[in-house]
């Protein structure tokens, strides 16, 4: 059995592969680095796969918390793991958009899931999941409701500020000027999509484009990205788990390479 662990800033994810490179365990827990979320999610995935820690041959850890986790054989960046995970699910993608809690990245990959180029957001939170969290808070809705709200939008409201803090006050003035919550939610999605499109162009992204990371669960965000990039963006299956799956594939490959 081969384990991939992805420790993010606000959630922990685990994927387990068996000897035949089949996915036998997948789990998410909304507790990130520095919490006991990792143990909870590991236990869940072990139970699901019907294995015990003794069955594990190799473990790879990735994500924001990878440096401080001590139970793995190797640590690999999210960039490489998302690429590997994507190739595992969907072999013909050429570009991956991953919007996570802390950062956003655009990754170009080859057929084997190797990264050929990538671009990440600058130090600020613009264009990341955190931006959407802040927007949801100002709009007084759940993060998961943003998509449905935005879909009901009837009018273009532009959020032009690239800074999360300024965008927050921009949204508040939009609301007090009488704009609807739906239109503002759509505007926020477009702002993120524009930001990501800039990164996409910088690495000369190419279709087919897929999306990984938690934000890929937001259907309207996918629509906005597709509009902005003028190509269909498809979420991978289990987008939130792409990094953990990639880490598990690396665990599988590293173990077999070492045995040779």
């Amino acid at each position, binding site marked *: 059995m081969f384990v991939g662990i992805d420790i993010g800033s606000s959630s922990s994810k685990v994927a387990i592969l068996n000897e035949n490179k089949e996915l036998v365990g997948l789990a998410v827990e909304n507790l990130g680095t520095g919490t006991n979320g990792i143990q909870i999610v590991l236990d869940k995935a072990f139970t699901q796969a019907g294995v015990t820690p003794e069955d594990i041959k190799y473990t790879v850890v990735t994500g924001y918390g990878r440096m401080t986790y001590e139970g793995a054989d190797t640590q690999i960046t999210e960039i490489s793991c998302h690429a590997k995970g994507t190739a595992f699910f969907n072999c013909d993608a050429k570009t991956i958009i991953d919007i996570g809690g802390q950062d956003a990245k655009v990754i170009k990959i080859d057929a084997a899931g*190797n990264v050929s*180029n990538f671009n990440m957001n600058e*130090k600020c939170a613009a264009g990341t999941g955190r931006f959407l969290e802040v927007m949801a808070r100002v709009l007084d809705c759940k993060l998961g409701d943003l998509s449905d709200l935005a879909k009901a939008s009837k009018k273009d409201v532009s959020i032009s500020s690239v800074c999360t803090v300024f965008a927050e006050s921009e949204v508040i003035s939009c609301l007090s000027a009488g704009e609807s919550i739906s239109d503002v939610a759509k505007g926020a999605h477009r702002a993120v999509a524009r930001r990501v499109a800039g990164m996409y162009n910088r690495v000369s992204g190419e279709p087919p484009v897929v999306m990984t990371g938690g934000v890929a669960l937001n259907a309207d965000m996918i629509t906005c990205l597709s509009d902005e990039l003028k190509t269909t963006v498809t979420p991978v299956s289990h987008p939130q788990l792409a990094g953990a799956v990639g880490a598990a594939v690396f665990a599988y490959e590293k173990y077999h390479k070492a045995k040779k």
Partner: protein
Amino acid sequence: MGEERKSSKQLLAELQAKHYADAQQAKAEGKPVAWSASIAMQEILEAMDIAVVYPENHAAAIGARKESMEFINNAEGRGYSTDICSYARVNIGYSDIKHAEAQDIPLPDFVFCCDNLCNTVLKWYENLAKDLNIPMVLVNTPFVYDDEVPERSVKYMRKEFDHVIRQLEEITGKKMDPKRLEEVMETSNEAAKWWKAAYSTAVKNPSPLSGFDMFNYMAAAVTMRGKKETVELFRTWHDELKERGEAGMGPWKPGEDEKYRVLWDGIACWTNLSTTFKTLKKYGVNVVCSTYPDIWNLRYGSNDLDGLVKAYAEHYANRSIKFSVDKMSALAEEFQLDGILYHSNRSCKLMDFRQYEIQRQVEARTGIPYVSFDGDQTDPRIFSDAQYETRIQALVEVMENKKNAKGGK
């Protein structure tokens, strides 16, 4: 002689100390002291025996001592925006506070500015001159849009050169001695030659030079090109590196192998030198070259004044995107680069505004992977350790893939 030869490291430390001590002493003796931009025609000042301090170099030293925030806060408190180059903010802060643990410098009697690096420096020096009520001497160097420095620019700068000498004669009450100028030009040329020879030893694979040492020695290339001792320093450093190279030694201690060779674009993060260096070293990444040390490879013929002014206009900072792309692509080949590291330096608009386009074109031409990270030369608030490490590690993973694909192990 019998005496043991000094290492370049000792020479560098001694020279730096002397550089600042000389400036302090000149001030104490009532001789004029200049604050000069880093790529200004120091030949004139040296030939006229004027003590010089370089605020950019001084700010870097303050940054490396992790002292810069005190000066930045002072400048920002007096109304300077956070968006202004942090060298300017540190120096403007120093002109008011007048003391730094890292190094004290005398206040200037005039400022000597050359705008061949950016426009920020022009406004920065104008403000110093106004605040301190001292003269500003300026050499304006037209930007070079074409492949060559146009003849009209050379003519224009030559006239300025003569005018600057007259201005300085007035300020100091002394006459310029053309013979002395010729001598200083000779020395400066020689120093530049050995500076280039020393860092070019990194062409060897593995490189005997660790790129972060190059950042340290650069201080002498910036501040003391016109001194005979500097020629000696760079020659000694070159010989040491050559010897290391011939012995098959890499950049670090035995057993610490250079696995990847990268170019560092932009200025160092002086406030985070140790983290930026150690993270790279941890993954076996050596900075074998950089775009800007070459700026101080200022070369011209013997007593060739046209050549001198031209050299000050034709370096990297004063050139077009095309020149930068050609230059980087050539470095990639010469130094057998595995990757390129772009420091997106919040301070330096000159270098940053063109960086995306340079990245795009260099990648298209060379296919070499790259990564950019946010940082700043002396404002410690911009850099983030975790973000830097993730980017470096991801670049290493891409470089590793490329090596494997090429048929490595």
